[in-house]
Each structure stands twice: as C-alpha cells, then as structure tokens.
C-alpha cells in the first residue's frame, strides 16, 4: 500500500509551510484569523496585522505563537512589511485580507453613499492590497500573494456598490500582479460567498435562513474551509492569476 516516491516528494506532509513566514493583514478576527491559524498549523511563522483591535490581535497571535503588528495597510504598508521581514527574518506569503467593514456602506440607496465612505473602503481594500503587494514583492525571493475578494466583484451587488467596485479592483490587480511578478511569485485571489464570520453576522435570524436556503450546500462557509483554500494557494506552485470562488455553489460564475 506504500508508495515510496510520494514520500520523498513531500518530506513534511504535516507541515507544508515549515520554514515559511506569512503575513495576514486584518488578521485579528474572522476570515483573517482563520487563515493565520491554518498557516500556523501548517508550520509557518505567522504575523497578523491590525489597525485598531490590538487586544484581539495580540490574543490571536499568542494562540499560535505568532506576531501582532500594528499598521494601516492603506498608509503604512512599506513600514509594515519591513517590520515583519525584519522581525521574522523573511517573507514568503502575504494574504491581503484587510478590508474596511462599515455597515452603512451596505446600502441600496445611491444617495447614502458618501465620498468619505468611498475613500475609506477603497483606501483599505484596494490601495492597501496594492501597497502591501508591492512592498512584499520587494522583499520576497519566491513566494505567494493571496488576495481576498467576494462574489459582488463578479456579479455586481445592488446593496454594496462601493464594495463591489473595490473587490472588482482586487480581481484585476490579482491578474496584473500575477503577470508582473511571474515566475517567482504566484498571485491568486479567493472570492468568498457567505462565510460565517463575515458580514453575515449582521443579518437578522429570519434573513439568515433565507440566505442559507439560496445556497446549494444549504449553509454558510466555515472559517476552516477558508483556511484550507488559502493553504492550497500557499503551497501550489503552478496556480497563478486565478480566482477561486468559495461560496457553496451560490453564484456559479
């Protein structure tokens, strides 16, 4: 039942990221924390970045012996990346997960979208992803950049025009970066549907039920499923420029 060849191919099947250093932006909770945990469990040394949630970030980092680093990705990306590379010695994996979450920006009323709202969302989700990626590419030898986007980027979203624009920008950026940074750095993006830890927390219970019934697998995604997908993109060297949709079959795009 044994195949000696495949055992030679992967000397650390339990720790595929052993020796690697990862930074997950916006890693103090939710999806970011799930990815950070998955990477740490796979043997990576992981830094998580936060802007305001220091206590949460420190607790998450401590849970897997990682590092919490403060910084606004839209403004201090260079400093942030340099700090991680200096403290952990290198950088192999960057997950651009930080996103500006603002409930008021989820609106179907065009007049309720303010210019400040527009700037706040795009500064973090789009500008932050660009600045962190560029800074990371300067210090990475070989590595992976994994971006986070969501279904509205692909389909449009009546009640989330600002987010759909920011996340559609991330889609284009992913492909352009994949071209610019090949063949040493693979750049991909995960497009999430409804994940338990994200915006679905804001839904009232009856609405949550009706959302779930529209998803073929009949439920929201779990943080571990996000971590598993991120780990795949962190380890496969021939996947680049791709958008992997994780949505239980909701969008089928």
């Amino acid at each position, binding site marked *: 039942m*044994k195949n000696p060849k495949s055992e030679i191919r992967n000397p650390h099947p339990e720790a595929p990221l052993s020796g690697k250093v990862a930074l997950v932006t916006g890693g103090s909770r939710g999806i970011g924390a799930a990815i950070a945990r998955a990477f740490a469990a796979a043997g990576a040394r992981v830094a998580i970045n936060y802007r305001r949630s220091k206590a949460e970030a420190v607790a998450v980092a401590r849970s897997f012996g990682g590092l919490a680093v403060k910084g606004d990705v839209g403004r201090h990306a260079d400093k942030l990346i340099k700090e991680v590379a200096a403290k952990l010695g290198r950088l192999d994996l960057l997950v651009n997960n930080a996103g500006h979450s603002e409930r008021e920006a989820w609106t179907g009323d065009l007049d309720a979208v303010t210019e400040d709202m527009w700037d706040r969302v795009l500064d973090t989700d789009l500008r932050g992803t660009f600045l962190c990626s560029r800074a990371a590419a300067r210090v990475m030898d070989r590595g992976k950049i994994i971006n986070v986007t969501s279904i509205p980027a692909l389909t449009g979203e009546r009640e989330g025009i600002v987010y759909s624009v920011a996340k559609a920008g991330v889609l284009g950026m992913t492909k352009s970066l994949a071209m610019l940074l090949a063949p040493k750095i693979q750049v991909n993006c995960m497009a999430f549907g409804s994940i338990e830890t994200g915006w679905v927390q804001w839904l009232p219970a009856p609405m949550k039920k009706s959302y779930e019934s529209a998803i073929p697998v009949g439920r929201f995604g779990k943080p571990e499923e996000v971590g598993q997908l991120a780990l795949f993109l962190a380890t496969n060297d021939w996947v680049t420029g791709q958008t992997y949709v994780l949505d239980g079959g909701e969008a089928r795009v």
Partner: protein
Amino acid sequence: MDNTLAGKTALVTGGSRGIGKAITRALFHAGARVIICGREAKSLIAAAKEIGEILCVPADVRREKDVRKLFKVVDRLDILVNNAGGMEHYGKFDETSLDAWRSTFEFNLLGAVSVTRAALPLLRKSRGCIVNIASDVGRRPFDMGPDYCAAKAALISLSRYLAAELAPIRVNAVCPGPVVTGNWGAASIRKAAERTLAKRTGTPEEVASAVLLAVKNGYLNGAVLGVDGGAVRTP
C-alpha cells in the same frame, strides 16, 4: 500521508495514465478506496502495480454497456472524478468534420454525462461529490481545435449547472493547463510552456492536488479551479 478520506470510495475514469493516474494516487494516499476504469486492461494493471491496492475495471465511458458493467462493480461511491477524455485529432474549423465533432463530444462530454447518470443514486445516498476534469482551453479557447475547446467549455458549464441541481452533491471543475503526460516533442513542450506565466508545463501532481482540494473542501461547489501556470485568467 494523511488519512482524511479513509472510509470513502472514489471512482476515477481514465485513472490509469497521466493526470488520471496522479489523481488516483493522491486519493489513494489520502486513504480512499479507489476504483479506476480505462480502455486498456494493461495500463490499468500497470497503474495498480505502481500505486497499490486499487480496483481496476476495463471500461470505455463512451459505451453504455461498459458503463452499466462498471456500475455492477461499483457498490458505493463518495467521490466521482470524471477524468476520461482527451484530444483525438486536431484541425481548424473547416477541417473538422461533423463526425469528428460527434466523436470529441462523445469522449469529452457525454462520457462524463453517462457515468454521472449511472453514479447518481450512489452519490445521492452518500451525499458525495463530483470533480470534472476540463481544461484551460474550455475557459478561453486556444489553438487546439474548435471541437475540443467547445466540448471542454460544455463540461465546465455542466459542472456549474449541476452544482445547483444536484445539491447537496457538490460538483466542481478542475481546469488543467498544459501538462506533459504522453510523448510530446520538445517544440510542443516549449510552445505550451510559453503560454503560461510560469513559463513551464505543469505536473500531474499539481493538478491532482487541486482535485484533492475540491474533494475535501465542503464549501467548494460550482467552482472552476484553474491549474495552469497562469495561462488563463478569465472566469
């Protein structure tokens, strides 16, 4: 070696050679009981000798009789990988006869349809999953013949369609780019590598790892997973 698929039964069509063999090996090493089918008994046996205790059934997915016989052997099923398929000929549109079109669709689309239909009662019982092996040329056409590109596009569309209709059975497509598995000439390998961002062709193992992801991740459904060195970046 992990054991996450222990207790699961998988069927890989065309599982004895190339990408199919790598998928068979990956599923086997994840602990699954694996059944493979293929047209040549010899290559099925060779794969079993190389990989380990897998069940081999000679069957051509294009023949209904063979598929019926196959499902007399398959008694339970959690994972179906529709991998059988391939390019049988190459020509420009005006060089491709209707018979050539029919043959390409029989091999690359209807084979998967036929096996999926036969597998459905077992997959419903196990709430299992399906992975269809399509191609990057099904996402964005490339100079590989109009019939082959269109048949692979149809297989991708079928995967997305079934992801809704067959729920809770999950259905995903994996789209490999150029992977050298047969006797490719040096010039065609160079040409294939050139169309990727990675500037190299892929390995069967790199494709198999995406199949394993599609099998293991319970929230992947209706997804089209490109594994192609960045050759195609559109949905």
